[in-house]
């Protein structure tokens, strides 16, 4: 199946990345609402990567499980890492004087969400969203 990577180094990389996700989602016939949820979650995660880790690498995959296709996005950076993940996943927690909505909001928007982080090494967030949103 399709597997793609994109390097994210600056703000201008965000829109082309979102467009690429849109293309893949359209290709597998994902509904508009589900596309919008996935891309919005992706947008939050790519912003975090730029803001806290000055960029990173995103892997885009079309995957399938019994009878259903979906999209998996992996955001990997070599930034400072996250010390306390449960805290970072709380609504309203931010070290960037922001809303603290990105991580918890992204988690709510997609079907599967996984975050791993090692302080001093980096953070990897993986999200999966199925074609019919379930």
């Amino acid at each position, binding site marked *: 199946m399709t597997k793609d990577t994109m390097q994210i180094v600056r703000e201008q990389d965000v829109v082309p990345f979102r467009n690429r996700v849109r293309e893949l989602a359209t290709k597998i016939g994902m509904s508009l609402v589900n596309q*919008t*949820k996935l891309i919005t979650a992706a947008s939050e995660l790519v912003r975090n990567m730029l803001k806290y880790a000055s960029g990173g690498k995103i892997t885009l995959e079309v995957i399938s499980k019994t009878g259903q296709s979906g999209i998996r996005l992996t955001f990997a950076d070599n930034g400072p890492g996250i010390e306390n993940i449960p805290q970072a996943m709380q609504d309203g927690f931010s070290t960037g004087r922001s809303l603290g909505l990105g991580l918890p909001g992204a988690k*709510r928007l997609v079907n599967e969400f996984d975050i791993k982080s090692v302080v001093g090494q980096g953070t990897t967030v993986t999200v999966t969203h199925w074609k019919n949103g379930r």
Partner: protein
Amino acid sequence: MDRIPILKMGPFLLVTIQVDLYDRLALSLENDLINMVSKTGARGVLIDISAVNIVDSFMGRILGNIASMSRIMDAETVVVGMQPAVAITLVELGLTLQGVHTALNVEKGMDLLYDKSDLLTDEQNNQEDTEEPDDYND
């Protein structure tokens, strides 16, 4: 650098966002709008986002900033034309557009602004048969 045009329509400013904004464009729109409100003494800002496919927390914050800065200068902000998929997504993301009014389309947004700013529409003005000049600064 690109810029998003701001139109003056009577006492209000109208912005139509036609592309998915990248951050610098969004920030310059925020700046331009706030400058325009202060320069023109506009009483309302209407932002048409019917062509916008994605509103993330960054974009939401910009809209919120425009609204709160405008309010300090006595102008209300109405966002119109939000796509249903965007509205659904915003709720799940957990983003509330603080201080931002919303309306279905430009026309309804205008009505809302007239309402909020205690101004009379042209129609109402004509009915009352007043022929005062365009002076909204009291």
